[in-house]
């Protein structure tokens, strides 16, 4: 266990060192982060400029969903995406073989191998949005709601990670998969909206087929105190199930790789 932690620490150190090596990064990334946040909020502003509420979701509650989305996206673009891109590169140039030769679990090492530390800006932005939303609402969440909101965020992160690992595992079979990641990113993009704003059929898809609702809408509802116990249980259970399934897919991918690569 300590071995893995030490390894993670080294990988983080290396990533941060490379990131800091370019001083211009700091400014560029800060600007990009702010710009992206602005862009994200635009459709929301356009929507709520004309309507007071959509299917029971008013501006502050929609902003909470947006805050969760931004935080999740920060994790995605900060850790998951860079690491899995590195994985696809390794598979392409054949140096993934060396990962398999090391006495460590390949999935763990590969999932957190590369970081984009500047995505912390986005995290800060997410918190800022959430604070603003509650200010606009007029009251703060209770301690219980805060704890639940945090717990559900973890579940949402697990769900997101599982989807991406399955995608990365697919790259073993198919080779070049930047586009699948892009597709997943596009679908993930729907998470910025409360799923209630989508018509019925989509709501079903986004809850059960590609659990986007698990990632942002349910955590937002938890923080707002409108989530019932049954949904909480289903969400947590669902996230864990996704994790297990993604692990199985990963193992199958490795088995396939070790029988097909010449």
């Amino acid at each position: 266990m300590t071995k893995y932690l030490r390894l993670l620490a080294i990988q983080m150190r290396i990533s941060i060192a490379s990131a800091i090596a370019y001083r211009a990064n700091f400014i560029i990334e800060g600007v990009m982060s702010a710009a992206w946040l602005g862009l994200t909020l635009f459709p929301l502003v356009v929507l709520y400029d004309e309507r007071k509420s959509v299917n029971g979701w008013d501006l502050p509650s929609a902003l909470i969903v947006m805050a969760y989305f931004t935080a999740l996206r920060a994790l995605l673009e900060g850790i998951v995406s860079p690491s899995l891109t590195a994985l696809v590169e390794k598979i392409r140039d054949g140096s993934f073989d060396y990962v398999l030769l090391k006495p460590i679990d390949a999935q763990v090492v590969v999932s957190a191998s590369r970081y984009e530390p500047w995505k912390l800006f986005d995290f800060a932005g997410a918190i800022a949005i959430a604070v603003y939303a509650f200010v606009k609402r007029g009251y703060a969440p209770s301690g219980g709601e805060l704890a639940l909101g945090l717990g559900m965020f973890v579940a949402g992160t697990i769900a997101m990670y599982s989807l991406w690992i399955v995608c990365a595992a697919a790259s073993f079979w198919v080779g070049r998969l930047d586009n699948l990641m892009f597709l997943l990113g596009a679908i993930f993009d729907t998470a910025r909206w409360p799923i209630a704003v989508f018509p019925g059929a989509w709501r079903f898809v986004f809850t059960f087929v590609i659990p986007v609702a698990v990632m942002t809408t349910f955590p937002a509802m938890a923080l707002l105190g409108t989530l019932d116990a049954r949904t909480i249980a289903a969400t947590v259970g669902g996230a864990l199930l996704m994790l297990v399934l993604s692990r199985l897919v990963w193992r199958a991918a490795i088995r396939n790789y070790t029988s097909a690569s010449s």
Partner: protein
Amino acid sequence: MITATDLCKHFKVHKRPPGFAAALKSIVSRKYEIVKAVDGVTFKIERGERVGFLGPNGAGKTTTLKVLSGLLHPTSGEVLVEGFVPFERKPELLRKITLVMGQKSQLIWDLPPSETYAMNRAVFDVPKDQFEHTLKELTELLELGDLVDKPARQLSLGERMKCELAAALLHQPTTLFLDEPTIGLDVAMQVAIRDFVRSYNQKHEATVLLTSHYMDDVVALCPRIIVIDQGKLIHDGDLRQLIKARDPDKRVSFTLASVVDDEALAKLGMVMAKDGKRVTLRVTERELPGVIGELLGTMKVLDLAIEDPPLEDILRDMFGKAKRESKPVVATSKDAS
């Protein structure tokens, strides 16, 4: 100890003929072909041996190494490395072996090798003092100097290879799989690496399996060679014995003071090559003393060399023969020096 019993590894390869129509068709249906990369190979290697795998391109050498190191699992047959089944990739085994691929790098490209070493140390869980001791030893033997502090992409091919070797040996493995480690390197570097591998083998009693296109690597380093062609093992044994078995005749090369006609030369032995005054004859061992005597007695000779036939010729002949006969010739011998 490494054992392979009737090892087979087959691949499914997608075949597509050229042309536009075929390209479109391949969206819906694809034709697959089975390639038998390794087809029934059996051998046994003891601890501390240095064994060279020889064979033409696509013979199955790299595939065999990959199966032995656990990167591929066999289609059929049994493989055991130090008592473990390689493709189960048990950590205990992974700590004992190492694979170096001359064409692929494990060094992190944008960073100095020292960072890769730090990673490997964490991965293999090497205690600090052991790590520093090993690193010092490797730095000396490989003459790394301050190379380890330069980003890997700034190193020349030879420098990078040395750093790769160090990275691969930090955990002091006892079995080394080297897949074309000297490819693309200049002669001096090739010699340096050969010397290093030999001394590592002697010092740590490490088993070394080497594949290489360069005959010199194998001749200099490996007393025992295994020849693989088209997935089949066609020779396993001592190098000198192989040469003796396949082509026992000697090659006598000399430079004449003045040109001699072919007839006179043919009386001495079969003329292999003649370039003005430089001649190479093929002579059986039995006739050798007589021929040398006659040569020195009747002709004016400026220099003289008596050699075994070149390994390339023997192998080329073997591979060609294997294609024609498709019957493996196995002569096993157990004395490794």
